[in-house]
């Protein structure tokens, strides 16, 4: 085999792609279709709650194209980090969509499902900190409602060797789905992983960038080539090399399961008007103990929010002291009754969304205020939010001229329940030996004429 071609339809399963791009990708006869479905980016809620951050209808739409095309062409379809976070409930959700499509279209194929859910009972006292995340403790493990481990390419390679045409996996290292079939075909691990690293975000690495368009990768003996499939986009050395930086702490040393992808000697060369050739990426296996990354989330409480705006210049000039006074009033009103809560005021127009306090220099003409209460029960979150809102509405701040009410509310009711709040509880490494484990064991099933056997 002189080259191995991989079609990456979209940056995240459910983000969509133009049908014409996908069809152009299939015309180029890929050897595999692969997609990454997950990320920790949308925050801890999705891992904690077991829900997907992508919509079922949107994921089904993408998978209808991918599944039917893969079966028609007789090539593998690989899905990593199913359901967004890759816990068993996410995996089951994605498997259910595949089942539905297979039944509707009467498809036949061999499927592998790979779990990445970690039973807290198998976690020993040997977790390793992944700084700057905190040192993992036994309490963090016990508090976690869902724990997943990030698998590398090996479970996908195993599933393909076992005859699976469709592989649906829980939490996976993003490049793994793209690299696994190419490594099975004998191609270089470093180049395969680096190609996967870029393909996992699909057309984000092209210009103009897009998370909802396809990208095509061709792996050869000593390089890989990336090309767009939409005539309005192209890969340039800048767009591709810049993507190497994206969401990474260090652009040249990218640690992953089993080793580090070293891009120190990587070069980028414009091949055609729309394609870029990448050379020199190396995989350096870990010496000694190998590790896998664990991610866990815990329940923190329940959230209620209220939204309003204010345009009074006196109020805006004093907003920080007003907020503090309202917080004090809430605390004293419920002292001894409700003490366990979190109350925050996000002031938009005055650093509401910024971690940096120096970015607003002139007083804004209008501010938006989000009042947020989080408490161990919905009832207490409602109480704190409601009381903070009514207190702020009528608070008699110094110098006030507008005495009828301090806030403009766009909605009635003014307060909204945000549901359960989760936080990341584990982000660390666990010792793991690929060859001596039942973790990530592919479960093989047959689908015959749309029936899952």
């Amino acid at each position, binding site marked *: 085999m002189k080259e191995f071609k991989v079609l990456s339809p979209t940056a995240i399963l459910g983000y969509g792609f133009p049908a014409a791009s996908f069809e152009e990708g299939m015309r180029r006869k890929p050897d595999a279709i692969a997609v990454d479905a997950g990320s920790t*980016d949308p925050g*801890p809620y999705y891992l904690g709650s077991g829900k997907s951050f992508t919509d079922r209808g949107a994921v089904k739409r993408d998978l209808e194209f991918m599944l039917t095309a893969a079966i028609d062409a007789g090539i593998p379809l690989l899905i990593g980090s199913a359901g967004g976070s890759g816990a068993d409930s996410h995996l089951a959700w994605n498997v259910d969509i595949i089942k539905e499509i297979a039944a509707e279209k009467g498809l036949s194929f061999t499927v592998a499902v790979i779990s990445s859910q970690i039973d807290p009972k198998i976690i020993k006292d040997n977790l390793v900190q992944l700084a*700057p995340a905190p040192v993992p403790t036994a309490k963090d493990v016990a508090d976690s409602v869902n724990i997943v481990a990030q698998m590398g390419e090996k479970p996908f390679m195993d599933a393909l060797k076992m005859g699976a045409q469709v592989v649906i996996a829980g939490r996976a290292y993003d490049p793994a789905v793209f690299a696994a079939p190419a490594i099975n075909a004998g191609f270089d691990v470093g180049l395969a992983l680096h190609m996967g690293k870029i393909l996992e975000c699909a057309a984000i690495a092209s210009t103009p960038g897009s998370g909802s368009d396809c990208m095509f990768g061709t792996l050869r003996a000593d390089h890989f080539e990336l090309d767009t499939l939409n005539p309005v986009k192209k890969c340039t050395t800048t767009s591709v090399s810049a993507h190497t930086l994206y969401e990474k702490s260090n652009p040249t040393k990218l640690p992953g399961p089993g080793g580090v992808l070293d891009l120190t000697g990587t070069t980028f060369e414009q091949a055609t008007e729309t394609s870029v050739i990448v050379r020199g990426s190396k995989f350096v296996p870990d010496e000694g103990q190998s590790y896998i990354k664990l991610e866990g989330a815990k329940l923190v409480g329940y959230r209620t929010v209220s939204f309003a705006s204010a345009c009074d210049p006196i109020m805006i000039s004093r907003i920080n002291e007003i907020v503090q006074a309202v917080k004090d009033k809430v605390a004293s009103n419920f002292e001894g009754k409700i003490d366990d809560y979190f109350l925050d005021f996000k002031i938009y127009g005055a650093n509401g969304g910024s971690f940096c306090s120096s970015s607003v220099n002139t007083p804004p003409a209008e501010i938006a205020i989000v009042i947020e209460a989080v408490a161990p029960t919905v009832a207490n979150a409602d109480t704190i939010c409601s009381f903070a809102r009514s207190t702020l509405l009528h608070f008699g701040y110094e110098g006030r001229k507008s005495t009828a009410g301090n806030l403009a509310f766009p909605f009635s009711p003014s307060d909204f329940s945000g549901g359960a709040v989760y*936080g990341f509880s584990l982000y660390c490494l666990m010792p793991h030996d690929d060859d001596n484990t039942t973790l990530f064991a592919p479960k093989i099933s047959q689908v015959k004429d749309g029936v899952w056997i």
Partner: protein
Amino acid sequence: MIKLFDMVDVVRSKNSGPYELTFDILFKDADHFAAFVDKKIMTPAVFAGLYGIDESLVESVIAFPPAKAVKITIIRPMASGDLGEKDIYGAQQHSPLLSFEYEV
């Protein structure tokens, strides 16, 4: 004084996992990028001053010549989604860099 805004194709911020924020500056011009790096215009101390954070939170400032890029990575003020969060994805923390001024 040169304004960073005028010299770059891209300035962006984003989470690098839930515990770090990373900032990418992609210059338009290779010579200007080289001068910016050689003169050490961006250092952990400069970045910390610009953002009003403690210098110990700045983990690295790395030049990446293939993309004419300088990457700054800092420890997130809180884990993504923790109580008090302002920007879950960390994608809107770039604006102080836009008004950064310097001489080469």
